[in-house]
């Protein structure tokens, strides 16, 4: 009788402990997901700020002013340098409709 009672108590305690452990693990994972979401937000914001800074630094106005002040050693052509279509692959990154990754 005592053995049965002790076993039942132990089983109930063991189930509770496992439940608590699982709950803790679940909370830990939730915290990790939240932290990663937050880190992703931080990275997106940092990316936006850096993109803004690079675009400001390389804006056509800035570059043209530098050329006019003689800071850049660039000579303008008197006739079209080439008849090929002008491409700016770095700026057009992701922009091409056909560049969508296959899923």
């Amino acid at each position: 009788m005592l053995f049965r009672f002790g076993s039942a108590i132990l089983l109930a305690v063991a189930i509770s402990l496992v439940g608590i452990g699982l709950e803790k693990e679940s909370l830990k994972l939730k915290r990790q997901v939240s932290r990663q979401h937050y880190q992703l937000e931080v990275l997106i914001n940092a990316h936006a700020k850096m993109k803004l800074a690079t675009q400001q630094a390389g804006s056509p106005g800035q570059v043209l002013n530098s050329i006019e002040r003689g800071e850049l050693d660039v000579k303008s052509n008197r006739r079209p340098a080439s008849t090929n279509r002008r491409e700016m692959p770095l700026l057009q990154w992701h922009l091409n409709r056909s560049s969508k990754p296959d899923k």
Partner: protein
Amino acid sequence: MHSENSKVQISWRTWSLIILVVLSWIVISGRLIFLQYIGHRQFASVVARQQVCKEKIPARPGDILDRNGRLLATTIVTNSLYMVPQELKNQKNVSEVCTVLSINQEYFQDRLKKNQDKLFLWVKRRLTDDELAGVRSLNLPDKAWGFRQEYRRKYPQGALAAHALGLRDIDGKGQGGIEEAFDHLISGQNGHRFLVRDAHGRVIEVRNDAREAARNGETLVVTLDSIIQLYTERELESILEKWRPKSACAIVMDAKTCEVLALASVPTFNLNHPEKISETAWKNTAIASIYEPGSTLKPFLVAAALERGLLKTEEQFDCERGEYQMGKRLLHDHHSYGMLSVTDILVKSSNIGMAKIGERLTNAGLYEAVTAFGFGQKTGIQLPGELTGIVRPLEKWNIYSTGSIPMGQEIAVTPIQLITAHVALANQGKLLNPRLIRDQIDHNYYPRSHEEPEQVRPLVSTPVISEEVADWLVRVPMVETVGRGTGRKAQLEGYTVFGKTGTAQKPDPQTGRYSSQLHVSSFICGAPAHDPRVLVLVVVNEPSVGPNHYGGTIAGPPAAEILNKTLMYLRVPFDKSGQKPLRQMTDRPRNALR
């Protein structure tokens, strides 16, 4: 006897007590039943309202890119400072914050006094990095001061394409330009989540079961090219400096696709400093101003007359030595001309020659011509505030109209209408719809689907005149206008330029009559003539200095400069050698416009 009486007395008291206790229990039970069952829903909702609050998850507005992927508008996260007036203990902090944020201290104290019972008061929204560092260094107490993150719109190119882009106000709503026209796409869709708070208002749980994620705004790729836009704006600035006009605008268009490569208007403003925008600078004169086009309208009417077989290219007209009586009205030319060919009427911009062509077309033909080229109706440029221009109903036209319309008077157009109509001439007589949006992609710059998005308008081509008529007009009279006519100052080395000048008198606001001092000077040009790639329109409103205000003098050179730089930038080869032969024009039956 005595014992019996005392028994009755005890029993009465006992019963009273029992009844009182029972009644109390009934009242308490009733109240409990009311709270637990009858009023349960109401009280539960009150508790939920007090404990659970809905928090908005703001969507990040999408970017705007130029046709090559240069960033024109983007969004970054900034901090806004708020305070809790009820918790404010130290007045010294207020003066320190005002100093760091350059806020008028008296004004802020006044605001503080009015809101001293409140739990929330904005101090300054969207702080700059320097301001944020300054406030952080003050080590303000957490209870009374705090930051909230908000999105801030930034325009890395500054004032570039300000009128075309528009801006977003303090509440993130698009105002003017693309920002307003496509606000529903760029803004995205805010999400929300529910927070559970304790009695002190502290968040104890974030409930994810009823959470709705924010949907970030779409990124739009516009047809503008930052480099061409910059060239255009610099030329407009030099016009402003040299001729001191009231306003000026310029549009550069791709002649094949009717895509707007540049659209600029001065006075302009810096998009990053909306607080400094004046009312005059806010107006986008390229789409929201109307003026009488003057001689720039003449090619369309000649085209209509040729198309209907009412005119032959080799015909000569007597221009009456500069004076022509038309009904009760005496028409004048700038110079005294005798016999002029159709080409010379356009090259020398003879009003009398055009009036005689107008007589052949009659009012009905003139009306049909101007409406066929899109005047009097919106072009559908996808920008807010576009005007339709003014083309009066045909019933209101009279004998004066027959002389005035061919001179570009009695009709008001917008610059965007005029260049769109000229693109039809340059594009073999096909009227196209101007386009400003090139693509719509997601916030990671990936296309949402392989199909063209809805915002990218399909190219609608409406034939207005035949290819031969359009080809002849562009390659003969309009090329000669630049070669030996009123547009000589727009000649370019290497490219065959075609163009048309316009000098329209404006009505004097005091007398109501045409003024000899107030003009709108304009010039439209394009190149290469045998296969037009680019068209440029420059309109200068009321130039105030200089000996004359002719379109060829004021608007011609800057338009040619923009055209030259654009063609060189687009690597269009020189065309002065190796042009295509001119199409032969066949005799046309007298018919209506296409």
